[in-house]
């Protein structure tokens, strides 16, 4: 939580309440356990989700409370268990489908894009598909090109899906509870590098609505819009900028769809400069959409073009010497911000 002292909405929502420090993994686990206690229709399905608790150990202990009827180990068949999830959601259940790595979403595209996202519309509103696909994003884990991608722009592109990108334990818990209660298919991405990131989480129950951006740090001179773990990159850059007298505002959209366009635009109008930072590929990426929203909504207030910083447009390389070049860093954001503020 130390990096998030100025988080306005977080502080506002939890002001005066009893809090504990949790990791992202603990926050996710708590959200799942609470929702499974609350609603017997909720179940978890995926590879090694039960006794193993996933390779990241995020789900550890859930099977002890809920049993193997509700925490269900599957064969290594992403399309198959994603499809079973869609069918179960269409007939009254609320599955949470665990896709171990975001890269494996590629295997479930028909179930997610052609089935889950469209069943409601194609049926003229008769079917509901309340399903959550929980998966990961993020590089720099030395996992190479098939276990390191940040593909959250793919579902963001598809009408019918909602997409969640929590950056803090507080957001992770509140947004996952909302995702499970939502009557639509939701794709929920956790940065696999942040499972041990700590933050304060209230003792009492809360949820966070979709489509409400959070200002992680207030500032006056430049807006840094950042998603998921890039929030920490932006906060790191903001610390450095402060040292040279530039006040940066860090805005976390938290959901790419629905998107809180107004908060992004308001912040850019206030600061007159903006950089959008996201770990997805830069080309045709989340940064492009968010930059367009700002350019459109704040054009007459901007003193500089909106800049985008995404992952380098290459398959993620294995070698640490190469991989570290591909993702935005606090230094790179700092340099870009300095330039935009005419301080290069």
């Amino acid at each position, binding site marked *: 939580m130390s990096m998030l002292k100025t988080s306005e909405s977080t502080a506002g929502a939890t002001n005066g309440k009893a809090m504990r420090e949790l990791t992202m993994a603990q926050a996710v686990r708590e959200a799942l356990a609470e929702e499974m206690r609350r609603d017997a229709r909720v179940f978890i399905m995926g590879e090694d989700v039960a006794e193993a608790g996933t390779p990241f150990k995020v789900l550890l202990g859930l099977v002890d409370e809920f049993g193997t009827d509700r925490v269900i180990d599957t064969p290594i068949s992403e399309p198959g268990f*994603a*499809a*079973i999830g869609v*069918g179960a959601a269409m007939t009254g*259940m609320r599955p949470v489908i665990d896709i171990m790595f975001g890269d494996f979403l590629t295997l479930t595209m028909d179930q997610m894009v052609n089935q889950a996202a469209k069943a409601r519309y194609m*049926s*003229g*509103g008769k079917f509901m598909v309340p399903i959550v696909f929980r998966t990961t994003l993020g590089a720099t884990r030395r996992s190479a090109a098939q276990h390191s991608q940040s593909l959250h722009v793919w579902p963001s592109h598809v009408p*019918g899906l909602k997409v969640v990108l929590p950056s803090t334990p507080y957001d992770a818990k509140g947004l996952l509870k909302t995702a499970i209660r939502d*009557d639509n298919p939701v794709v929920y991405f956790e940065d696999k590098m942040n499972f041990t990131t700590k933050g304060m989480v209230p003792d009492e129950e809360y949820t966070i609505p979709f489509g409400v951006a959070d200002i992680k740090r207030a500032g006056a001179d430049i807006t840094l819009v950042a998603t998921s773990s890039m929030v920490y990159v932006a906060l790191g850059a903001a610390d450095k900028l402060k040292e040279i007298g530039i006040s940066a505002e860090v805005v976390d959209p938290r959901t790419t769809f629905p998107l809180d366009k107004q908060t992004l635009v308001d912040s850019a109008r206030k600061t007159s400069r903006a950089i959008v930072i996201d770990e997805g590929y830069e080309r045709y990426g989340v940064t492009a959409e968010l930059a367009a929203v700002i350019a459109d909504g704040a054009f007459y207030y901007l003193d500089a073009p909106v800049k985008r910083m995404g992952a380098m447009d290459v398959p993620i390389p294995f070698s640490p010497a190469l991989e570290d070049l591909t993702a935005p860093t606090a230094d790179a954001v700092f340099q870009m911000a300095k330039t935009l503020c005419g301080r290069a």
Partner: protein
Amino acid sequence: MAANMKAKQVSHTQTDAGGATVDPEEWLHMYRQMYRIRSFEEEVNDLYTKALMPGLAHLYIGEEAVAVGVCESLKREDYITSTHRGHGHCLAKGASPDRMFAELLGRAPGYCKGKGGSMHIADQEGGNLGANAIVGAGSGIATGAAFSARMRKSGQVAVTFFGEGALGQGLLYEVMNMASLWKLPVVYVCENNLYNEYTHYSQTTAGELSARPAAFGIPVEVVDGQNVRAVYETARRFIERARNGEGPGFVICNTYRYHGHHVGDINRAYYRSKEEETLWKTERDPLNLLSQWLTEQHLADAAIFEQIEKEAREEMRSAVEFAIKAPFPDASEVTQHVYA
């Protein structure tokens, strides 16, 4: 119709379905259902060729015994998933033809408000989770519905219809594996109409078809898909078995589509012969096979069939009339139902 049925004159009920007692009236009901499908599809062909129906039309004519034999074994609350060739399944599961035609013509009173059309027609109230334009995709949804039924202890069974072309899709094998491991109440009904679109299945499908479900430990039977009594008898056993918690089943129904892959597939000589088509239509027609048997058994006569056919044709004509007169959806509908 019931008043002049020969069925009333026989004192004994027939034991034709695997030793199960079947009221002769039930066979006549199946004849009626099959004829309604045929008549529906003839109207579709007519609408399409008159350019009154937008999009694509994949006709089920020739395969009626499969949908009817299976759906007559289901309860209304049971689930089905269907295919791009799905009008027959939808009718057999109890949908009403007027709202079906409205859907096919993209009209507001259609089952899906005109947003799904022929390839996505669904009838939630009747347990039809929808036709699907991705080959094999319905197998995943049906297996999920069976999983859900088991979790909810609802006693429902799910049936997924698919063509032999879906045997090329990996999803089918993934969900069959899980269905067998977890003994899910789902029955896989493969309609082998011999052609994956325009290609004979022997060119696309290695080994024996029945070896595939057998590899997962799923009981499989091959039935004459033109004989509704055989389909019904087998489907009933598999469905009851699934309902009793004994796990999935797989039925291969050998059948034939009289028309092309879709209505526009007129010149078919490059992939199948006229002689083959004629043989199936004259020797293997599901309506003829049932009416002949009922006649031989002195359970019905020509007058009964004529009456059934006349009523079905009238029903379909008035359904088409309803659809043609129905309004298109309001423009405001385009953004409705993207999200719940």
